[in-house]
């Protein structure tokens, strides 16, 4: 049932057309090839997972998508146009937001302030106006705060709104990171191991939030995750990487039965 214009998922959701397409991406660091000739696409409104064993090149791939790395060979197409070489903040302005594997929040700032930084790309008033908090700067801040409060409400972190991030437990910090990414109102949300180091309950909460974000805001999500159970339950389509190569691509069921994938994960006698 898949065509270039979109498809319908197993649970009956309509997925849109191609949002981002990776064409023959190769990424080399000197003599090391991190990614070798990989192509795949991300459709609008889907949850797309990238999985693979340690060192498979998943995070490098995410960094290519977010514009942190420029591919040695290959093209990134976004919203129907080839994306030129860009700085990460320029990519962010185009509607790509991300969370990090190792939490990257401002520890000394409150949750609210941290999430507000997610609105940075939406602020246009100049330094002087912001410093004086006058005119458009004030209006802008109120508008942005409204968006931020909706995100805080959505992720149920009202009770820690004014708590400095440094005092929060790990699982909550992860949620605050997600909040910051969501505050940017991205069209593509990149999650780098959102469940890493979490206990079962925290994982369940996070899965719930990821599904709700996708359902409620229609945000396209690309995520990297180690926990196979989580990936298979959450995602609509999965890309499997091993040693920098793509060894599988399809729905969770297709991927689960792919012999190459089984070999890569369970190991195979050589």
């Amino acid at each position, binding site marked *: 049932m898949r065509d270039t214009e979109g498809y319908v998922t197993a649970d009956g959701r309509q997925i849109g057309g191609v949002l981002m397409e990776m064409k023959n991406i190769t990424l080399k660091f000197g003599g090391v090839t991190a990614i070798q000739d990989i192509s795949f696409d991300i459709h609008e409104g889907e949850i797309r997972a990238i999985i693979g064993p340690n060192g498979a090149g998943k995070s490098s791939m995410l960094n290519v998508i977010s514009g942190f790395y420029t591919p040695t060979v290959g093209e990134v197409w976004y919203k129907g146009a080839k994306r030129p070489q860009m700085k990460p903040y320029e990519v962010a302005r185009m509607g790509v937001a991300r969370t990090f594997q190792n939490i990257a929040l401002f520890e000394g700032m409150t949750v609210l302030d941290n999430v507000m930084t997610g609105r940075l790309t939406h602020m246009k008033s100049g330094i002087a106006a912001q410093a004086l908090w006058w005119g458009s700067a004030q209006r802008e801040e109120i508008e942005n705060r409204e968006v931020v409060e909706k995100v805080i409400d959505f992720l149920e972190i009202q009770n820690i709104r004014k708590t400095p991030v440094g005092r929060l437990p790990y699982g909550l910090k992860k949620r605050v990171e997600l909040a910051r990414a969501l505050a940017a109102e991205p069209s593509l949300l990149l999650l780098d191991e959102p469940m890493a180091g979490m206990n079962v309950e925290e994982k369940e909460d996070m899965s719930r939030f990821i599904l709700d974000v996708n*359902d*409620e805001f229609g945000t396209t999500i690309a995520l990297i995750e180690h926990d196979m159970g989580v990936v298979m339950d959450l995602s609509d389509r999965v890309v499997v990487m091993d040693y920098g190569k793509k060894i599988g691509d399809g729905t969770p069921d297709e991927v689960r039965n792919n012999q190459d994938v089984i070999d890569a994960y369970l190991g195979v006698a050589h």
Partner: protein
Amino acid sequence: MAYMAEGAEGLRSVPALLDRNAREFGGSPAYREKEYGIWQSWTWSEAKDEIEALALGLLNLGVNRGDHVAIIGRNRPTLYWSMVAAQMCGAVPVPLYQDAVAEEMEYVLGHCGARFVIAADQEQVDKVIEVQEDLHQFEHMIYVDPRGMRKYDHTRLHEFSHVQAQGRAARDEFSKELESRKAELDYDSTCVMLYTSGTTGKPKGVVLSNRNIIESGKASSEFDSLRRDDEVLAYLPMAWVGDFIFSIGQAYWTGFCVNCPESVETLLNDLREIAPSYYFAPPRIFETQLTQIMIRMEDASPMKQRMFKHFMAHARRVGPDILDGKPVSFGDRMKYALGEVLVYGPLKNAMGFSKVRVGYTAGEAIGPEIFDFYRSLGINLKQLYGQTEASVFITVQPDGEVRSDTVGVPAPGVELRIAENGEVFYRSPGVFVEYYNNPDSTAGTKDAEGWVATGDAGFIEESSGHLRIIDRAKDVGQMADGAMFAPKYVENKLKFFPNILEAVLLGNGRDYCCAFLNIDLTAVGNWAERNNIAYASYQELAGHPQVIAQLKGHVEEVNKSVAEDEMLSGCQVHRFIVLHKELDADDGEMTRTRKVKRNVIAEKFGDLVAALYDGSEEVYTETEVTYEDGRKGKIKATLKVIDAETVPVTPRAVAAE
């Protein structure tokens, strides 16, 4: 105020009160809720508009007269509106406990035959969907928070705001019908149906009429002279009669504003921001807040600690007297005023009690130290005694006559009677109509003349006219020598010590009383940490000689105070055992609401009971426990039986002869 003088004439239903409020002071705030970090508010006229829109929407969905509309969720303006909207349509709102599991909801929904359910969010909707197969009368469900609901089958599921929008669109069609249904409501029509918590058997649906709610709301508002500018924080379960009286009965009668917190987690913060002037909490909440204050004070600088101790000692001495308007010397007053600036004021502000004029605690006995702490700060904390069947109020403490060991004088309009066996009976305009579909229970509780049995044993103190509750009537017994045995009275005294979490008193039909004690791991653990006492487990800490010595001291103190009581001096604890495990609902030793199940404990720990009464010094025991994942295990222990000193008293029965 003019509308007060006209009494309940013409104001014979909650919707009628709403009309009056919107007409006479439509611009004052009726509801506030913190959402998106800001207190959003609705005036009485706005609230009326919202409620009417919902009522029209409900008519549009086909709500009939007499239908039951179940309401499930935490305290939110939308759900309070739902109750009033249901009343407008001539239907009966039935609020449910939001933390009830699906099976419990199934029983209640099935019992009242609810055709409509208004649920707060996905969590509640899921529970109802889980059990809807067996609910034959259930038809439509309305949810408030649309989050996560997109994929649900919406043939019988409606979003709250959409129902309101449809109601507004159908105004012309239905407004006549709505007016006539509102006009039909009178003093005897049902206002609400509330289910009892069901600690004894299945929950029972208590039907309360408009008369019950409005008369109780009116009398109690006048008793405490509540005003339109009062503020309350609505955070106790909506299914509980107290919340209904405070947030609807009294709020609609006096027209004060009901504030709803943002979430359960932000409660204490919201409390501080709102600073309610009229406040209600069970003793547990006051205890928690006091503990938090004490822990934080221990971390404060030495200077602040000294200041706190000095002024608190002063407050304890003169604070309650100042509050009660008794004569206090000028110097003491000046010092108290200084303390107000330096300590009491900031402390009350931190707890959100800066503006409390009237505060109530009920439900359980409150520790005298806790009670006195709040009163000495100048917070007018009082006790009341009530029941769902009485529309809350049976007795209340008037200003100036507040004590921690009584529950006050009969509330306005309430008559009290103590039966032969000590059980308390009452009669009042608030007495419930009936238990829904349960004439047997109704007849068993309420007699033809309207007297209702409380199930509690108590007596009226001759000197003050105050009621004192001793225990549940069925738990009160006699000792071998004929003296009265009331376990809860002694257990509460024991539990007031922070070190003691639970206490079970034995002695019905015996020569003397004995007790099982549970240590409070937080308090005792904290003490052990500060005194460098190492322990590996609960069991080890509970058996530590120093811990036992401390508990022995507590028991002996309790004995002294029990000995002073004229009726219950026989209940002194002669011997006790510190249990090796915490009493737990999972093991069936307590109910889910943490009430001790005496018969289970007496049976399960039979060997220990025997040891208490045969004079042995220690006893070996094995106890089966259930872990949280359902596995079972055994705890083995050798427990010491401790003799406590008692105060010799001449038994009253003998002296009288």
